[in-house]
């Protein structure tokens, strides 16, 4: 009798699926790390203008966001097509900006309250009048550091 008996049939043994959970976990962790939570649902069109002399806004906990632009298509019936300001999740008027900035500032840690930047994410098609009004409101509440958030690109892309 041969010691190396040929196994019957040509079938391979079933493959262990024990490592499957590891793989799934790994993918899970990857997405957990790489995902950026979006805190605001955009209700305005937001095609940012392009610029190349820009600085990064690195620390997210030091930034207050203000969005502005034309309401998105599904809100146009209700809110019209004139550019509007969006604060958090709702459309706002210019006079709300000051209160919003103060409220946001109050939620930040005390040592950060003096170094906050207000990021203006404004659609390229907006008139400067609205932005000037926002800037006046920001000056009233002494939120003087602003950042015109842009896309990275040459200015010729704006035409």
């Amino acid at each position, binding site marked *: 009798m041969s010691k190396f008996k040929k196994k019957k049939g040509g079938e391979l043994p079933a493959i262990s699926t024990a490592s499957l959970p590891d793989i799934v976990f*790994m993918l899970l962790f990857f997405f957990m790390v790489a995902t950026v939570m979006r805190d605001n649902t955009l209700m305005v069109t937001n095609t940012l203008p392009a610029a190349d002399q820009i600085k*990064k*806004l690195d620390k997210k906990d030091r930034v207050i966001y203000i969005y502005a632009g034309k309401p998105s298509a599904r809100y146009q019936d209700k809110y019209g097509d004139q550019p509007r300001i969006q604060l958090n999740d709702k459309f706002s008027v210019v006079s709300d900006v000051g209160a919003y900035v103060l409220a946001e500032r109050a939620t930040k840690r005390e040592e950060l309250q003096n170094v906050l930047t207000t990021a203006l994410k404004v659609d390229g098609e907006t008139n400067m009048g609205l932005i000037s009004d926002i800037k006046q409101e920001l000056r009233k509440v002494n939120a003087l550091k602003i950042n*015109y958030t842009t896309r990275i690109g040459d*200015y010729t892309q704006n035409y």
Partner: protein
Amino acid sequence: MARKSPEVNAGSMADIAFLLLIFFLVTTTIETDSGINRKLPPMEEVIDPPIIKERNIFTVVVNKNNDILVEEKLMDLRDVREAAVKFLDNGGGIGEEACDYCKGEKDKSSSDNPDKAIISLKNDRETDYKVYISVQNELVAAYNQLRDREFMAIYPNERMTYVEADKVYSDPRTSPKVKALLKPKLAVLKKMYPQKLSEAEPSKTNN
């Protein structure tokens, strides 16, 4: 009865998953916002505004038709950067106000020195935001161009431009030691070409 097909070996699945994981880890950049930083003037009215000589002010107006008027003359956006550089780097001052590092034309009717030179940007309420940002971008570029030039002239050993050095400085991954070395150098340049860009309140022009 149909022949049983052999099961596929899935033992290398983990390796494939690892590969994918590493690939994505390396290539993904978590999106960070970037833009042009500006500082608004405080609300308090200046009671006694300093008198600034006309030649030290470079007026840029963007009107409601998105035309760019530099020193009251219509100009293409392409030429704004160059015109601003020429104005800032003019160095027409004499005596105490002389500018020994300026390479401009020393024109008597343009700015005395970069410390005195002010760019005043004015817009209409109906100006498009994207045009305004383009002009802002070009004006900041003019400052950066001059700072780059002087930075490379003073600190050739750094082997980078002012903008690159500033990027390294503001990167949170840079070690405190490198930051401490860069900070005074950047400050020198900021003092040589201070960014005096005033954003006037918009007008409701009729033209």
